[in-house]
């Protein structure tokens, strides 16, 4: 019996973005990453080209994250108060391909660090590691708008990925990224129409939309992940079938979401049938990551070193070209 593989014919492909810049390119990074460029649904190599693999970033905070689960203490406890040393450890010991620096300390409720403080942290981290950086604000619009321009200027030439821009607050970020040639994260609240709209609005500021990484907002396993999963699948299918306003790589704050779940943190004493806490937490994070990777996630921001190992192996396995 003849077997003819069924292949979709796509008209469009996902934008390809390179992040970070080496000395030749005007920056100080020792490596860059390139994501996107897919011409097929995730890992369906028989259907079209998948030129770049998803990459793994680890989260680093500018203040000690007091609410993180105690199991992180053994990995990061000695570097919690030193973002540069923390980032170095993530790259050199735990294999992070990018660092996601979260300027949580700028939050008026968590220390209210000044833009100058934030710039100092950025410079320290840039000096400590050679991988490309993602820099996230604190999430409070007014404060983020005070720090984004300073961060963008201080990181000039480094081709940072700055975030996040939201429908209510994207102009300052977009202008800052435009002025100093950075890429940006456009975040939408699990809503495909807002995701598309936001990309268009950012484009209207003369920002090159192929320099946008979409954050469709994922949720954690067990807490609505299927909404994010389906939005990502729809966005990717839409992108391939011709909707250029959604044809961007996607990023997900997997560690941040997964480690908020009760199942990642609850002790075995409280839930005897759930098994040991740290292994369960790692698996909660890894399962969140692996499921979203199959929906098209391009940058996976994680927390636990063991999860990095698991997710990188999964990505390598999925990137082996399968053909008919």
């Amino acid at each position, binding site marked *: *019996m003849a*077997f003819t*593989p*069924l292949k979709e014919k796509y008209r469009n492909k996902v934008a390809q973005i390179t992040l970070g810049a080496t000395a030749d390119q005007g920056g100080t990074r020792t490596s860059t990453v390139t994501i996107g460029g897919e011409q097929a649904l995730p*890992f*369906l*190599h*028989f259907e079209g080209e998948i030129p770049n693999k998803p990459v793994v970033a680890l989260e680093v905070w500018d203040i000690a994250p007091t*609410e993180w689960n105690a199991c992180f203490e053994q990995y990061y406890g000695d570097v919690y108060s030193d973002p540069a040393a923390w980032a170095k450890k993530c790259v050199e010991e735990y294999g992070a391909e990018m660092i996601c620096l979260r300027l949580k300390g700028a939050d008026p*409720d968590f220390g209210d660090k000044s833009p100058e403080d934030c710039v100092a942290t950025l410079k320290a981290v840039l000096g400590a590691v050679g991988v490309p950086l993602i820099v996230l604000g604190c*999430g409070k619009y007014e404060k983020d708008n005070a720090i984004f321009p300073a961060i963008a200027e201080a990181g000039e030439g480094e081709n940072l990925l700055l975030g996040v821009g939201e429908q209510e607050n994207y102009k300052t970020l977009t202008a800052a990224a435009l002025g100093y040639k950075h890429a940006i994260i456009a975040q939408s609240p699990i809503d495909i129409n807002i995701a598309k709209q936001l990309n268009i609005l950012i484009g209207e500021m003369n920002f090159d939309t192929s320099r946008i990484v979409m954050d469709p907002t994922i*949720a954690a*396993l*067990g*807490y*609505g*992940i*299927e*909404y994010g*999963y*389906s939005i990502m*699948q*729809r966005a990717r*299918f839409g992108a391939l079938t011709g909707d250029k306003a959604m044809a961007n790589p996607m990023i997900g704050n997997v560690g941040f979401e997964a480690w*908020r*779940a*009760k*199942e990642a943190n609850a002790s075995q004493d409280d839930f005897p*049938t*759930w*098994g*040991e*806490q740290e*292994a*369960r937490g*790692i*698996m*909660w994070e*890894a*399962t969140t990551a*692996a*499921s979203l*990777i*199959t*929906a098209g996630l391009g940058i996976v921001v994680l927390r636990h070193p*063991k999860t990095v190992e*698991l*997710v990188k*192996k*999964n990505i390598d*396995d*999925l*990137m*082996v*070209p*399968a*053909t*008919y």
Partner: protein
Amino acid sequence: MGLTGLQIFKLLPKTNCKECGVATCMAFAMALANAKASLDQCPYVSDEAKEQLDAAAAPPIKKVTLGAGDFTRTMGDETELFRHDKKFFNETVIAIMVEDTEDVAAKAEAFDKKVYERVGLTFYTDALAIVNASGDAGKFKAAVEAAMGKTDRVLVLCSEDADAMAAALEVAADRKPLICSATADNFDKMVELASSKGCPLAVKGANLEETVEMATKAFAAGAKELVLDSGSRQVSQTVADLTQIRRQALKRTKGFGFPTMAVVTAEGDMDQIVEAVSYMSNYAGLIALKADDDALLLPLLSWRQNLYTDPQKPIAVEPGLKEVGEVTPDSPVYTTTNFSLTYYIVEGEVEASKMPSYILAVDTDGISVLTGFAAGKFTGETIAAAIKETGLEDKVNHKNIVIPGGVAVISGKLEDASGWKVLVGPREASGIHKFVRENFK
């Protein structure tokens, strides 16, 4: 994936005899396409047309049942490529592998205790897969018998030796285990076993093409309940094969219309779970793996639950009064809806605030705060009624309730209807931390 009205019309007599009760054959064809009429109503339809129409009405992926008695699992009968187009129906069967060289009775006993509860739902590991690692028919039979004495869940019998399979089926056939697998070497004997014993059969070729050829032959030879194992043991090839099988089945390519299985090959227990997630997300009907640690299975089973949720039906938590932390009569009281996303986000933030509290989850049929407000399901009156029903007044020694900031307008009505004092909370759950610091500490 049924036929269109026009396709059906071509198969009808086109005499417009009206005996079916409809004015024209075309109108009758349209009614058939919309499942508003039955072909029996036409007295003149030819047998040939009937066969074609029946075949088109059959599910694109055959339904296969594993197990017998109280614990059975259904595979196949799926209709979609993407869950958002409608939904996925039959949850992936998780089979935990145990070898017949191990202490199977003890393993089966431990396996049978694997029941997980979270968010008010119960998850089971569905099947125990007994692997004939010894290569010995007697040992395999004894292991299967030992497992049967310890668990009522589904059994998967893994041996490519037809004699060992025959021995095991002497004791296990009534349990309708999945016979795993028919291969090129044992094909005739395995197919004969499956059809004579009435058990489902996995068919494994060297690759997808060979697997489908074998399945077509097995079906013709009388083994009707089949499961396809494309033979791939490499992750991306398995993902590709599972995807091809689903696509071809929905297009009704011959030989593809059966449920699928995948075998996890990673060494590390955690790696096995991650590999299983890749297959589960890509249509696997059954996944066999060795990892059996509770801490690892809970996340995998949770992903299954999420993936198979009906996208059109909001998921609700049980409405009522929830306790977060060690509550006392002085603890604050929050209210929100019983839409699970909303509820769990609020619960998470309240928990993170480290202030033990009550959360009153009002029954809005599982819709969110603003939608519930607009639909008249999250109002001063419904919240006041929930306060009464849950006996909240006896649990706390105050009458203060925090409402979501988005519905501040209901404050007056709620105060009038309940006699409680309303505190308008933050618009987003992420503001709870700050709200607690400013109001309760």
